[in-house]
């Protein structure tokens, strides 16, 4: 992660998502903060200052992206030499379009997706049936054949098979693969629920300044 912020070692433009979320975490990790302490430090004003100061060091070389489809495009066009991205998009570009991209998993931020059934939904029972099916060990592992996002159940891990188009083992491409999880940060939902209004404002002011 430190290399991402090292313009001398790897000159060229960087792609970052336009917004404070994830970028502040990445900045702290690059600044030497251990993955487990990231949110502890980010919760202090000094920690936020430190993260912004680290982002300052590459600010002039950043191309900001907003949609998930942009990072692989930016890489393919040569607009950036490195970028943050959703790993599924990069895997798609590599496996589906033979792009020469490599994912560096160090300091990855992982997040959990949720299913929600709205109150008074007309087909609630059907939806519940679907939930039972889709969160089962086997279907979760099967889903990983289509997109390289990790199954939410530990028991699904060993069952993850091959990519649906090519004989590529999906296991090592999962964010949840043990090798990839070494220095990973779990997105802190509470932290962002509490602070995103304020940090968004500061981020926007920082961008314009």
């Amino acid at each position: 992660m430190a290399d991402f912020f090292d313009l001398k070692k790897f000159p060229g433009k960087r792609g970052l998502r336009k917004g404070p979320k994830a970028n502040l975490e990445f900045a702290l990790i690059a600044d030497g903060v251990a993955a487990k302490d990231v949110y502890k430090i980010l919760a202090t004003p000094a920690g936020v200052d430190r993260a912004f100061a680290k982002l300052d060091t590459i600010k002039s070389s950043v191309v900001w992206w907003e949609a998930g489809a942009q990072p692989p495009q930016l890489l393919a066009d040569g607009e950036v030499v490195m970028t943050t991205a959703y790993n599924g998009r990069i895997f798609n570009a590599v496996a589906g379009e033979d792009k020469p991209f490599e994912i560096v998993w160090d300091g990855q931020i992982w997040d959990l997706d949720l299913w929600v059934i709205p109150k008074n939904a007309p087909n609630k029972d059907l939806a519940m049936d679907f939930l039972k099916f889709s969160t089962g060990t086997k279907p979760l592992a099967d889903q990983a054949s289509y997109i390289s996002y990790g199954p939410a159940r530990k028991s699904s891990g060993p069952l993850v098979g091959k990519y649906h188009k090519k004989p590529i083992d999906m296991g090592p491409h999962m964010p949840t693969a043990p090798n990839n999880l070494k220095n990973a940060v779990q997105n802190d939902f509470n932290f962002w629920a509490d602070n995103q209004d304020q940090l968004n404002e500061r981020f926007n002011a920082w961008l314009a300044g």
Partner: protein
Amino acid sequence: MTDLAATDAMNEGLGLEDRAVLKQRLARTTRRMKWRAFLLTVPLLLFLVVSFVLPIGQMLFRSVHNDTGSGVLPNFAAAIQKWDGEGLPDEAIIAVFVKDIQAAAANREIGKTVGNLATRVNYEIPGSRSLFTSTARKVKRLTSGPYKDALIKIDKRWDDPDLWRTLQRVVGDFTAAFYLAALDSKYDGSGEIVRAEELYQIYIDNFLKTLWLSSIITFFCFLLAYPVSHLLASLPLRLSNLLMILVLLPFWTSLLVRTTAWIAILQTEGLINDVLVHIGIIADEARIQMIYNRTGTVISMVHILLPFMIMPLYSVMKTIPPSYMRAARSLGATPLTAFRRVYFPQTLPGIAAGTLLVFILSIGFYITPALVGGEDGILISNLIAYHIQRSLNWSLGAALGTILLLAVMILYWVYNKLVGVDRLSFG
């Protein structure tokens, strides 16, 4: 004789009464005609009310009105009014608060949940969102007092009088807090109005930047459009028609297409940079950054808004007889003097209309700066869109929108004083 007698008889026949009846009938017919004419405008009127008056009214209302607080905590909203703001509220008020929170925790109605309240308070005290959601979870089992101590045991932030003062303010339905936020200010803990810390100031600067960029864009539009319009007005009809089509063609093309075309031309790997590198004017590593900043916004907006300047200028110039200039020259004026004293003053109504159109359009421009503005070239409308679509702080978005509307109206008023709207000619 008989004829005369007949006329007399007819005049006699039309007595005063009959005349009144006729008048009444006429009045009725004219009224009916007026109504019929009015009915023709009803669809437009309805359309205006629905699409213009109502939304603006709603925006004005929303910018000062937010009843999330009193909606989630109805009884507390009434009880806290008696509190004088010294120390912590007494046990009775806090008991009402806990009961309200417990009721809200069971409520799933949109706009009336603890989450809605937490979001609302978080606008005023950043970082307090989870205090409310976690407290709501923990007070579920609380059935008897003392509630004050119980709350402080759950989280010691409940011991802070500032938090309660903020709550007292939040449960009021009408607030100036969003206008303060839109002007980089806020209430501090004790309710005083203070400036936001410098790191969080963004809106005033952006308003000024929007006005500044709009002025630049208007100026460049004028500079480019004036000679073109003159050419259009003075060329023979066949040629000027052809030229007119060249002006109108981009005008008929989608805004999005034109903006994207500018991206292709201006980007670092784009047309202009490629050509410059190819003929050796700049090095490959030193490609010029012409887009995703202010420059990109100005260039593409000037292009897009140019027809709005050309049209009124052209229509005014078309009406100026060329003989005026010839007369001025034959009376001894130099070309410059003739232009300055005879031609230019007559084009003023067109200039006035064009600048007004372009300036007001660019103040509210949204798509182009969003696409080519990068981080530096975005305008106030992009921040409004951000609060309407992303952060979902609609009240702040409404406050920003109202300030923008006000700014445009003031500018229009000043403009009217300077130029006179009745002199405008939109062609």
